[in-house]
């Protein structure tokens, strides 16, 4: 009986510790973001008696951060659209059409996810500059799409393969070309798979740092993570503003993750556990 209570107690304790470890840093960031400057430089109190929205006002009123959020939105949306469109077509070919070298293509595509980004950086930078795309959103859209394509292709190929082949064949017998069978029959059924892949590409692109840091040069194309990393501090580091800004930058992906966490977990684990 006592052993049972001890075990329950230990279990509850480890649960509290785990949740505290996962959420603690974020909760502290939230607390920091609403502390007036005077309370930032002393501890205790843990919680400020006079919470303030001043840091959020400063951050949201800062045109350069607002611009970087806009850039991030355009880049992430563009990269997602491109990766899902091209990746969907490619995955359909791999799942249902008779092309040669499918295993080679899938293997090659997977090996690209192992590339360290720094390994391509020097020559990618020169390529982007030669194309006149340096410091443009287009360069980031194309790069993010290219590096998100392998994951999209893998997820979508396995998704398309799980759609019964008879549905596609029936459409072909009825006179559909592969293209119209894909658009009219496969795509409507594959919406959940497309949504998962789109979500993962969007989060990847929104969070990506190295390409965004090297391929941008000014506020014109700087994304939110880069703006956050280069946060200006004239004399002292403005921790309150940084806390507010980092939560603002996290908010969109956190909301997506919360809304669709079950699909994200399913999408990410399906590829690695069953595949």
């Amino acid at each position, binding site marked *: 009986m006592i052993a049972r209570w001890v075990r329950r107690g230990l279990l509850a304790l480890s649960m509290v510790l*785990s949740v505290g470890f996962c959420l603690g840093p974020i909760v502290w960031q939230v607390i920091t973001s609403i502390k007036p400057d005077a309370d930032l430089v002393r501890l205790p109190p843990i919680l400020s008696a006079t919470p303030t929205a001043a840091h959020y006002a400063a951050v949201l009123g800062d045109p350069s951060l607002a611009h970087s959020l806009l850039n991030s939105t355009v880049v992430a949306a563009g990269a997602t659209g491109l990766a899902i469109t091209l990746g969907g077509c490619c995955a359909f070919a791999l799942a249902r059409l008779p092309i040669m070298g499918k295993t080679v293509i899938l293997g090659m595509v997977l090996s690209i996810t192992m590339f360290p980004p720094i390994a391509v950086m020097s020559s990618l930078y020169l390529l982007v500059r030669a194309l006149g795309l340096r410091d443009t959103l287009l360069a980031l859209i194309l790069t993010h799409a290219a590096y998100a394509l392998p994951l999209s292709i893998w997820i979508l190929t396995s998704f398309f393969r799980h759609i019964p082949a008879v549905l596609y064949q029936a459409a072909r017998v009825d006179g559909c070309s592969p293209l119209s069978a894909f658009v009219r029959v496969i795509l409507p059924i594959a919406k959940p798979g497309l949504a998962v892949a789109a979500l993962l590409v969007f989060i990847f692109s*929104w969070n990506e740092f190295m390409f965004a840091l090297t391929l941008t040069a000014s506020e014109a194309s700087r994304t939110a993570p880069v703006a956050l990393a280069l946060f200006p501090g004239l004399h002292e580091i403005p921790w309150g503003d940084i806390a507010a800004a980092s939560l603002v930058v996290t908010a969109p992906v956190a909301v997506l993750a919360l809304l669709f966490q079950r699909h994200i977990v399913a999408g990410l684990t399906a590829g690695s556990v069953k595949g």
Partner: protein
Amino acid sequence: MTMLSARTRLADSTWGYLFAAPALSLIGLLALVPILGALWLSLHRRLPIFGIDEFVGTLNYARLWSDERFWAATRTTLYFTGLSVTLELGLGFVLALLLSHMTSSTQVAPRWVQVVIVIPWAVPTVVSAQMWGWLYHSEYGLLNYLFAAGGIVSEPVDWLSDPTWAIHAAVLMDVWKTAPFAALLLFAGMTAIPPDLYQAARVDGAGAWAQFRLITLPLLLPVVMIVLVFRTMDAVRVFDAVYVLTGGGPGNSTETLSIYAYKVLFQTLQFGYGSTLATAIFLIVAGLTAVYLLLLRRHLRGGSE
């Protein structure tokens, strides 16, 4: 009419190549061409600001071999990788077991538990670096405050200015960000194990530890390998987390290979030697992948015999 019938008669395989071509071209142009380009650049001495661009053969590789900073960065990277991947796997196991315990006692893991676990994964790396930088702050950081309150330290520790602490501070940040995700993968693997096995083991009188060691662990090995491979690859190429947290300092004590190569490329603008470093990183990652694949294959073959 002839045009139309020609089009409708396009072979299925032709359709296939048309469907696959755009994606593969984009990958080819922005991933495969640059990797070969970097290899080519690594054989050059190239300093764009001085207009210098000459072929030097393997000279850069000789320089790499005797570059003490490269070896130091390699040691730092491998230390960071070894420690953080071990801790992530260990903590991931603990979290996964907790999750599976909750599932077995309430039939389904509460939704909020998965939410809690997904959050660190979704947070942008730059945000987690800024967040931990503030937690580690020597004067106003929460960590020193809690440690002092708990009597663990007598005076504040300057975590990020001390070479020994700084690298471990980076490891802890990485563990926070990725262990929950490892837990999710391991948990998914655990739920795929048939419950009958545990029932049979209990009937035979096996305790919790014996069940874990004889059923959970062996059946979970493929998932463990996958977590290991993915986490190792991510840790070896680590850049943004450490770069934003410490910038590679103090001194060069937290300078990983990617940070060193980035500095050579974009701060000193040596495109030739920087590409040599980048190629070396690529080869290290490829080598590690090959080792893992060999291990995985041996394991799979051993399992089928």
